[in-house]
C-alpha cells in the first residue's frame, strides 16, 4: 500500500488500521515519525518581520486610524491605532474587513476598454486590457474634443465617498480649469442632506454636528443607527460603553420605525409610524414649554418669571425676553401650543403617556441632546422633521455646551503652491460665462436649496434640458445599484461615454466604456480630514501597507494625469502639480506652524503617526454665556458678534426657531409643500406624502456589516449572523405575523413585494416585534454584478422604490414607500 497521508485524513487512517491490521501500517508510520512534524518544521523557519503602517479605515466615513499588519508582503491583520483619538485602538466589525477588500479575487487588475458597443445588464462589456497611456490618452482625447466644440460642460464627474484635498478635493479645480459646472457632483442627496440643511436653517452651519456624547446625561435619538452605522460608528460604540456605565448613567431614548440593536440597548424604544418623528419632537417641545422645563439661561424667560405657555393658548410676545434663540413665542403661537402629546399620539401611534414620560426625562436631565439623521428625514417632510427635532437642542440649552452639540473646525493645511486662477484659459472662461446649471439642477428654481441631486441625473440627462451629458466619470459611487428607481440609469447611460474608476466590477463598471481602476485604501497615500467628531481639528494620512497588487492608479493621480493631457494652460497646471504626493507634502507644510498635539509637524511625522490633531475645541456655552478658550480654560467672554461669526452663523446670530433663511424661500416652499408662506420659517408638523398605493411601509436599512457596499463581495461578511439581514448566507424580509396571516403567509414563505415600479421576491421572516404596518428589507443585497459573492444574492429594494425627494433639501424619501406583499405561487 502507498504512504498514508496522515494530514489529509486522520479518520481515514484509523479506519485503515482497523481493516488492514497492524503489520501493513507500521512501516509507513515509522516513516512519518522520522519527519519533523509540521509544528516543528514551522519552529525552525526564519521569523519574518511584521511591518505596521498607519492608515485610515474606508468602511464608513468615521476616519478611524488603523494599524495595518504586513508580513512577507501580505496584509493579514488590521487593528485600531491605540493613540488615535477616534479609533483609540478599537474597531467596529467592518474595520477588520480591509484585507478581504485588498485581496478580493474579483478586483480589476488594470485599465480596460469596452469592446462590446451594446450596453445592458445582460451584455458582456467584453473588456480588454489596455495600457495606462492608452486609457488616459483616450479619455483626454475625448475631453479635448469636447472643449474644442465648446461643450466642456457636457463632462461630469460624480463622486461618492472621496475624502481630502488630495482626492475628491481635486475635482473643484479640475472643473474650473476644464470648464464644466459638473466636475464635483456628489451623492449627499441620498445620504443625509436634510439634516445638514435643517441645522443650517436654525443655527447657520451647513454641516453635521460634532457631539460631546461622553458628557451627556440624556441622549434622545431620532432614527440614528448609533450602534449600527451612525458615524463615527466605532467611536459611538466606545462612547456607549462609557456613557452606559458612568455615574450618572446616560439615559437613552430611541425613536425608530423598527427594532434595532440601538433601540433594544436603549432605555426606551418608541416605534413611531414612519415619517412622524417631527410630530413627536413637537409634542416633547410642548411638554417642555408648558411645564417650564426649558433652559432659561440659554433660551430666556418670561419677564416676570411666570410661565404663560398653556396648551392651546397664545402668548403675548412682549412678556418674554429671549437670549440665544429667536422666535420662540412666535413658534409657540404658530405651532407648538396645539402640539399636545394627545395630538402627537394620534399621528405617531405612540401613547401620550410615553411621550410625556420621555419629555419629562429629556427636559429635566442636563446635559441632554437630541440627535437625528437619515431616519426622520427620508420623507417628503424631511426638513420640517429635522427642524422640529433640532429645536429641542435649543430648548435644553445643549448648543455648544458640555455634553451638547458643536460644529466641526477645519484643518490648517498648507496652501497649494499652484495658483489655479492663472491657468484658467479662454475655453474655460467662455464655459463659465454661459452660466449653465449643473446637470443635477442644484441651485436652480427647481431646487434652490439642493446641494446635490444624484438621483435626478438620469432623468435630467434623458430630458436633455438644457443639455445632455457626453462623458460621465464615476468615483466611489454606484448609483446604478443604489439610487431609488435605480434601473433608470441603465437607460440613461446608453448614450453617455462612461468612465469608471472602481477597483471592483460593480454595476457601474458594467456600463463603462473605459475603466481606470483605483487603488484600494491599503495601497494608497491620501489625506482624510475628519467628519464632524468632537469639534477640534483632526486629519489623517493614509500610508500604503503594500505596493499596489495590480496595475491600478490612485484616483487623484488618474485625475492629474488626465489633466496633464488637456491642451493649453490646464495641462501646464497639472504638470506643475505633478502627482498626489506633491499635494500631500504641500498640505503638510501647514503643520510646521501648527504642530499637532502628538508632535506631528511635517509630512514625515504625519505619515509616522497617521494623524494630526489639535485639541481643544475653542468655544463653549456655559449657562447662557459664550466663552473662547484662553489657553487654559474657557474664560474669554465672547461678544454677540463673535458668536454670530463663529457659532450661530444665522442672520440674527441666534438659534432661529423662526428660520429667516428658510423664509427667503417661502414662495418655493409654499408651492412645493403647501405650507402657508407666513408659517414657512417655523419647525412644524407637515404630513409626509407617502408614495405608492400599498398598505405596508417598506424600509430598507443598512446593516452593521454593510460597509457602504464594500462588504458585498466578502464571503466572511456575508456569512455573519445579523438581525434583519438574516445573515448566514441569506437575506429576509421582516414582517409582523398579523399582516402575514391576513395574506396567508407563513414563516419562511417566498413573497412578492410590489410597488408601482415592479416587484422583488424575498423570503419572509415573521418578526412579532416589528410594527405591523412596516416591513424591513435590508439594503445592499441584490447585486447583478460586483463580484462572484455579491452577484445574485438577495434582492435590491432600490429597484422598486420610487424616486421621490424632499423638495427643500433634495434628500431621497426612501422610507415613504407603501407597498403590497403577497405570497408567490411557487415557493421554490
Amino acid at each position, binding site marked *: 500500500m502507498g504512504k498514508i497521508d496522515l494530514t489529509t485524513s486522520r479518520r481515514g487512517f484509523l479506519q485503515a488500521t482497523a481493516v488492514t491490521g497492524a503489520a501493513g501500517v507500521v512501516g509507513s508510520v515509522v516513516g512519518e515519525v522520522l519527519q519533523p512534524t509540521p509544528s516543528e518544521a514551522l519552529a525552525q523557519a526564519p521569523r519574518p518581520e511584521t511591518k505596521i503602517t498607519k492608515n485610515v479605515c474606508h468602511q464608513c466615513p468615521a476616519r478611524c486610524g488603523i494599524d495595518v499588519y504586513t508580513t512577507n508582503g501580505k496584509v493579514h491583520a488590521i487593528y485600531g491605532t491605540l493613540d488615535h483619538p477616534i479609533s483609540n485602538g478599537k474597531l467596529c466589525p467592518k474595520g477588520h474587513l480591509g484585507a478581504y477588500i485588498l485581496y478580493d479575487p474579483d478586483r480589476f487588475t488594470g485599465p480596460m476598454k469596452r469592446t462590446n458597443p451594446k450596453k445592458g445588464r445582460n451584455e458582456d462589456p467584453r473588456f480588454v486590457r489596455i495600457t495606462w497611456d492608452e486609457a488616459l490618452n483616450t479619455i483626454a482625447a475625448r475631453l479635448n474634443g469636447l472643449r474644442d466644440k465648446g461643450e466642456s460642460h457636457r463632462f461630469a464627474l460624480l463622486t461618492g465617498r472621496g475624502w481630502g484635498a488630495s482626492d475628491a478635493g481635486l475635482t473643484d479645480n479640475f472643473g474650473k480649469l476644464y470648464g464644466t459646472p459638473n466636475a464635483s457632483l456628489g451623492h449627499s442627496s441620498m445620504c443625509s442632506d436634510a439634516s445638514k440643511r435643517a441645522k443650517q436653517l436654525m443655527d447657520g452651519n451647513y454641516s453635521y454636528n460634532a457631539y460631546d456624547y461622553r458628557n451627556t446625561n440624556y441622549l434622545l435619538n431620532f432614527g440614528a443607527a448609533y450602534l449600527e452605522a451612525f458615524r463615527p460608528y466605532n467611536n459611538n460604540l466606545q462612547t456607549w*460603553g462609557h456613557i452606559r456605565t458612568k455615574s450618572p448613567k446616560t439615559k437613552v431614548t430611541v425613536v425608530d420605525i423598527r427594532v434595532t440593536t440601538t433601540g433594544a440597548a436603549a432605555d426606551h424604544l418608541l416605534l413611531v409610524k414612519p415619517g412622524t418623528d417631527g410630530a413627536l419632537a413637537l409634542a416633547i417641545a410642548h411638554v417642555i414649554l408648558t411645564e417650564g422645563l426649558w433652559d432659561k439661561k440659554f433660551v430666556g424667560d418670561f419677564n416676570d418669571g411666570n410661565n404663560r405657555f398653556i396648551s392651546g393658548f397664545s402668548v403675548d410676545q412682549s412678556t418674554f425676553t429671549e437670549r440665544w434663540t429667536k422666535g420662540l413665542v412666535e413658534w409657540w403661537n404658530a405651532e407648538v401650543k396645539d402640539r399636545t402629546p394627545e395630538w402627537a399620539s394620534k399621528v405617531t401611534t405612540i401613547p401620550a403617556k410615553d411621550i410625556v414620560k420621555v419629555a419629562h426625562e429629556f427636559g429635566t436631565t442636563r446635559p441632554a441632546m437630541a440627535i437625528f439623521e437619515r431616519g426622520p428625514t427620508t420623507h417628503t417632510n424631511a426638513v420640517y422633521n429635522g427642524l422640529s427635532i433640532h429645536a429641542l437642542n435649543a430648548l435644553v440649552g445643549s448648543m455648544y455646551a458640555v455634553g451638547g452639540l458643536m460644529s466641526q473646525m477645519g484643518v490648517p493645511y498648507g496652501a497649494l503652491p499652484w495658483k489655479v486662477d492663472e491657468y484658467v484659459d479662454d475655453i474655460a472662461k467662455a464655459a463659465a460665462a454661459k452660466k449653465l446649471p449643473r446637470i443635477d439642477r442644484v441651485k436652480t428654481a427647481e431646487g434652490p436649496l439642493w446641494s446635490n441631486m444624484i438621483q435626478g441625473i438620469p432623468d435630467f440627462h434623458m430630458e436633455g434640458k438644457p443639455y445632455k451629458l457626453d462623458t460621465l466619470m464615476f468615483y466611489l459611487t454606484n448609483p446604478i445599484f443604489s439610487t431609488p428607481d435605480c434601473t433608470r440609469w441603465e437607460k440613461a447611460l446608453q448614450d453617455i461615454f462612461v468612465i469608471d474608476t472602481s477597483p471592483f466590477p460593480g454595476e457601474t463598471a458594467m456600463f463603462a466604456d473605459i475603466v481606470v481602476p483605483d487603488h484600494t485604501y491599503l495601497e494608497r497615500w491620501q489625506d482624510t480630514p475628519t467628519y464632524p467628531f468632537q469639534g477640534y481639528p483632526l486629519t489623517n494620512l493614509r500610508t500604503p501597507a503594500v505596493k499596489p497588487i495590480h496595475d491600478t492608479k490612485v484616483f487623484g493621480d488618474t485625475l492629474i494625469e488626465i489633466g496633464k493631457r488637456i491642451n493649453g494652460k490646464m495641462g501646464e497646471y497639472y504638470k506643475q502639480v505633478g502627482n498626489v504626493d506633491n499635494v500631500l507634502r504641500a498640505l503638510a507644510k501647514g503643520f510646521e506652524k501648527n504642530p499637532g498635539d502628538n508632535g506631528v509637524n511635517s509630512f514625515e511625522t504625519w505619515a509616522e503617526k497617521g494623524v494630526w490633531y489639535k485639541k481643544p475645541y475653542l468655544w463653549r456655552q456655559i449657562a447662557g454665556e459664550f466663552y473662547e478658550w484662553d489657553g487654559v480654560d474657557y474664560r474669554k467672554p465672547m461678544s454677540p458678534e463673535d458668536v454670530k461669526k463663529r457659532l450661530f452663523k444665522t442672520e440674527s446670530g441666534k438659534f432661529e426657531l423662526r428660520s429667516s433663511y428658510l423664509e427667503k424661500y417661502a414662495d418655493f416652499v409654499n408651492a412645493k409643500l403647501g405650507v402657508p408662506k407666513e408659517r414657512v420659517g417655523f419647525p412644524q408638523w407637515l404630513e409626509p406624502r407617502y408614495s405608492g398605493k400599498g398598505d405596508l411601509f417598506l424600509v430598507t436599512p443598512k446593516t452593521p456589516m454593510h460597509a457602504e457596499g464594500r462588504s458585498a463581495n466578502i464571503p466572511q461578511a456575508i456569512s455573519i449572523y445579523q438581525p434583519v439581514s438574516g445573515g448566514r448566507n441569506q437575506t429576509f424580509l421582516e414582517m409582523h405575523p398579523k399582516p402575514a396571516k391576513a395574506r396567508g403567509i407563513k414563516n419562511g414563505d417566498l413573497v412578492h413585494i410590489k410597488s408601482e415600479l415592479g416587484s422583488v421576491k424575498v423570503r419572509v421572516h415573521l418578526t412579532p416585534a416589528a410594527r405591523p404596518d412596516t416591513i424591513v428589507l435590508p439594503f445592499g443585497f441584490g447585486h447583478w454584478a460586483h463580484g462572484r459573492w455579491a452577484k445574485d444574492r438577495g434582492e435590491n429594494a432600490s429597484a422598486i422604490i420610487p424616486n421621490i425627494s424632499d423638495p427643500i433639501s433634495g434628500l431621497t424619501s426612501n422610507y415613504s414607500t407603501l407597498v403590497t406583499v403577497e405570497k408567490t405561487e411557487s415557493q421554490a
Partner: protein
Amino acid sequence: MARWGMVIDLEKCTGCQACTTACLMENSRLPGEMWQDVLFYSEGEYPSGKLSWLPRPCMHCENPSCVAVCPTGAAYKAENGAVLIDWEKCIGCKYCMIACPYGVRFYAEEKQKTQPDIRNVFPPSGDKVWDPPYKMPEHVQDPKHGVGIQPKNVVSKCTFCYHRISKAPEGTTDLDPNDPATRDFTPACVVTCAPTARFFGDLDNPESNVRKLIAEKRGTRLLDQTGNRPQVYYLAGESPAIPETRSVRNPKT
C-alpha cells in the same frame, strides 16, 4: 502560570460583532467559521418586543466535556487554562462537537454554506484546507495548539488567541489592550471590543481585574448546571441581555 479567563459585560455589549470579524481576521477563519459569534434573539410582540444578543466564544471550561469524549487526546486542556485541539492528533470524528454544550466547535464541511466556496478561490497548498493571501503568517501558525489554518478533516475552535496570550510575560495578571505593554498578548476580540465589554485576566489571581469584576458585578456562567465550569463569565449588569430562550447551540434567528 496564569489560568486565563474572560469576562463579558453584557450591559456594554452592543452586539456589533467586531469580536466576530476580529477573530475571523486574526485567526484566518473560513467564512461562517465564527469561533466568536454573537447570537440574536427576538422575543415578545410589538409594541413591547425585545431584541437581545449574546456573544458566544468557547467557554474554555475547567471541566470540558469535549476533552472528556475525545478518542485520540487531540482535545486537551492547556496549562494556561485554554481548551485546545492538537490538529496533529485530531481525526475529525466530531464527538467533541456533540459533547460541547455551547456549540463552539467547528468543522469545515465539504459543502460550504456561503457559495462560491472560497477554498476553491484560494486553494490549499500542502495539507491545509485553504491558502488565502491574508492568512496568519506561517511562523505564527501552530497546529499543535490549533492555531492558524487547519489541515483538512479536523475540528477547529477558539484558542483564546493562544499564539498571543502564550507570549505574555510570566506574572501578568490582566491582559489590557489599552496598555501598550500587554496589548499584543491580548486576544483579538478583547483588543477590538469598542465598548470595552471584554476583559481578560488570570482567574487564579484574586488581585486580577477579572476576579474583581466577577465579584463586584456578580459574574455568572452560562449553562453552569452542566458542570463544565466555564472560564468565561458574563456580567448581566442593570439591564441584563441574557435571553429568555437560552438555546445557544442552534440559533434560528
